[in-house]
């Protein structure tokens, strides 16, 4: 048994941290707050040059053929840096869906462009009134000639205004589920951004009779269900890693702050209540780290991982908010000011905690997995 990064992952982790600490200042997050339509394309280009988008894409499709553990190394560093870019939707979700699909022409077309950074993907999976379940999908894909006509409304579509493609779901007229890719500039698409805590520029995307070719369909029926399950599994584990990066940063910031600040003639880090807050954060970080690594590793190995992911995501999701709030509490009033980065981590950690299923959603999955 070996719970730690291997040599190659350590090198990747160090270089990713170094790169992002230089290239991804927190000002990028604040820029997103002030204008949520675009993101930093220069940084995106540099990341693509480093080969990050293709880390977990097969070499046949222009990637470097790494596994999910390698991708997770990057996601952790991105969480630590609060990277505001559509990496997750593109390199994790879209890449997973396409690699899972049998629609060879679309794979051959799109995967290399994901790998080289020339395509931005978003995902549009949740409909108004629904949460994480894939039941009750109301968007409709009607057979029309050689392709389909798609109509429906989706919420929580990150970076929608910057995306080239959406990955989305609909029902066929025979009630079968489909997963499809839709070009963002298709006629009939209306995008309305709404504000969210994490400045991710989440949008409402309304589709009215969007014409798509047959090759847009990545999966139908049971295969679509299986694909969505795989997306959920991978994304949930990926979000755990993002949370881990966030809360590690919160802990580090807090320890540095309390070790330097004086009140009552004492370093505040010498007060037992402050020490215990920090200790509790450290315990949460370590716990999140290892329960997450197990889930990630199992996915990377292609082993069954439903239970491990459900445990990791339920744990990490609640740790995210607990640690975020403790970080604020240990900092006191300064943490309530925009100038401190603490709230950026809370925003990110919270968004990750609800993405692809929150604590309660995964606890119910755990309950099923343990035989209840």
């Amino acid at each position, binding site marked *: 048994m070996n719970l730690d990064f291997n040599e190659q992952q350590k090198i990747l982790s160090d270089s990713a941290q170094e790169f992002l600490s230089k290239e991804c200042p927190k000002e990028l997050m604040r820029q997103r707050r002030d204008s949520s339509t675009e993101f930093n394309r220069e940084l995106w280009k540099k990341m693509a040059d480093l080969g990050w988008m293709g880390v977990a894409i097969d070499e046949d499709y222009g990637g470097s053929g790494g596994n999910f553990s390698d991708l997770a190394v990057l996601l952790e560093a991105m969480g630590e840096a609060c990277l505001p870019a559509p990496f997750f939707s593109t390199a994790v979700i879209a890449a997973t869906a396409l690699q899972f699909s049998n629609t060879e022409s679309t794979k051959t077309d799109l995967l290399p462009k994901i790998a080289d950074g020339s395509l931005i993907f978003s995902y549009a999976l949740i409909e108004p009134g629904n*949460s994480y379940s894939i039941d009750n999908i109301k968007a409709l894909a009607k057979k029309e000639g050689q392709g389909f006509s798609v109509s429906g409304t989706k919420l929580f579509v990150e970076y929608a205004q910057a995306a080239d493609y959406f990955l989305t779901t609909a029902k066929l007229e025979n009630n079968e589920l489909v997963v499809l890719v839709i070009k963002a500039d298709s006629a009939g698409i209306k995008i309305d951004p*709404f*504000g969210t805590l994490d400045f991710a520029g989440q949008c409402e995307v309304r589709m009215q009779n969007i014409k798509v070719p047959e090759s847009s369909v990545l999966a139908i029926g049971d295969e679509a269900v299986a694909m969505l399950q795989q997306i959920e599994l991978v994304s949930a584990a990926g979000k755990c890693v993002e949370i881990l990066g966030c809360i590690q940063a919160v802990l580090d910031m807090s320890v540095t702050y309390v070790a330097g600040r004086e009140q009552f003639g004492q370093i505040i880090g010498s007060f037992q209540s402050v020490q215990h807050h920090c200790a509790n954060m450290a315990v949460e970080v370590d716990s999140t780290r290892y329960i997450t690594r197990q889930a990630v590793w199992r996915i990377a190995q292609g082993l069954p991982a439903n239970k491990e992911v459900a445990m990791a995501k339920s744990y990490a999701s609640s740790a995210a908010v607990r640690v975020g*709030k403790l970080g*604020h*509490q240990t900092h*006191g009033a300064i943490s309530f000011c925009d100038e401190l980065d603490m709230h950026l981590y809370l925003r990110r950690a919270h968004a990750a905690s609800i993405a692809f299923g929150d604590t*309660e959603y995964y606890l119910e999955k755990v309950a099923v997995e343990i035989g209840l």
Partner: protein
Amino acid sequence: MDIKFSKEEQEFHDEIDEFLQRELPEGWADKPVTWPHDYASSGYQEQGDSDLAEAFLEKVIEKGWVKAFWDIGAERQAYSNMQQAIFDERMSYYRAPTMNSVTTGIVAPMLLRVGTKEQKEKWLPIIASGEATFWLGYSEPNAGSDLGSVRTSAVEDGDDYILNGQKCWSSGAHLTDYSWMIVRTDQEARKHQGLSFFIVDNKTPGIKMDPVINILGDHSFNNVFLDDVRISKDNLIGGKNRGFYNLMTALDYERICLVGIGGFKRMFEEIRDYVKATSHDGRPLSEKPSIRNKMARIATRIEVNYMLFWRTAEMLDRGEDPNVESSILKLTATELARDMAEIAMEILGPYGQITGNSERAPIRGLVSRGFLESISATIGAGTSEVMRNIIAQRGLGLPR
């Protein structure tokens, strides 16, 4: 024991309630507001609201309620603390525009308690008429939880004092007229023994205010710099070098007057109505056992806080000093403010993250706002840790 309002209290309650229902602008409580017991208030979002609020407050002042809380001639409170508590509860329940609560809840009672006759006659009427509003000049960069470390200095110069230094986290300083400021009048004395209170006009030459933007993106805090600010000795309140002693009382008032207990009930009712009216995945939220359980816990804790709130009013009316009890109230109410926001976020799932500038935002985005705002609750006016210290040391007698 008599755990209901007396006849007189009930009549007072009903009078306020009817007044508020009659006089508040249509749909006032549905305008975007702040989370219960936060310290992030930053004025009104729209100029129209601000005008409506002022017009309403005119009526409150006309009613005599602000003035009536103290009987200047007799130098005592005209209404009981229980009545003031009832007033606060109703006002906060309706989210009514209030007189600045620092002014009416802290400065006015402090003047009544430690001001001279002349000071009372000068300040109380213009407080009652809304002409004088105050911010709290307590915190400094190196004096947060530890207010004994205040360094801003006041040096005697003839009939005046010259003030130099910096105040920070000055909530609403830019929206008010005066500061209720604690400064060091004796540089030689031991840390807690050389402090005094002053009333400082914001317009005095030498005062500079820099805005500080909070995590909601709002301007609520300020950094206030004092550079040779000349203040008349008449503005020294409560005795020279008695500042730390007076501060203890002022902090008690603060912990009580900032609770806004009715706001908890109102916010809770909005969340309750929302979960009854909303379905996720085809099922009303109000039918989910976990949501019923969470809502019931919150409702119960609000009720507990109501009891603790009435208790402090009772103690004040008995002439007792609710030092520990106000700390218990501050602790439980602010922890509740945080927990209520977190639990509401859990209930709303992905919809909780939508902020108020979107039509899709549940309850006008109040919950996502509260998730951030409530961070200030357990920090401002004394952290939860400081409250627990007070309860243990002053309440239970454990050694410092």
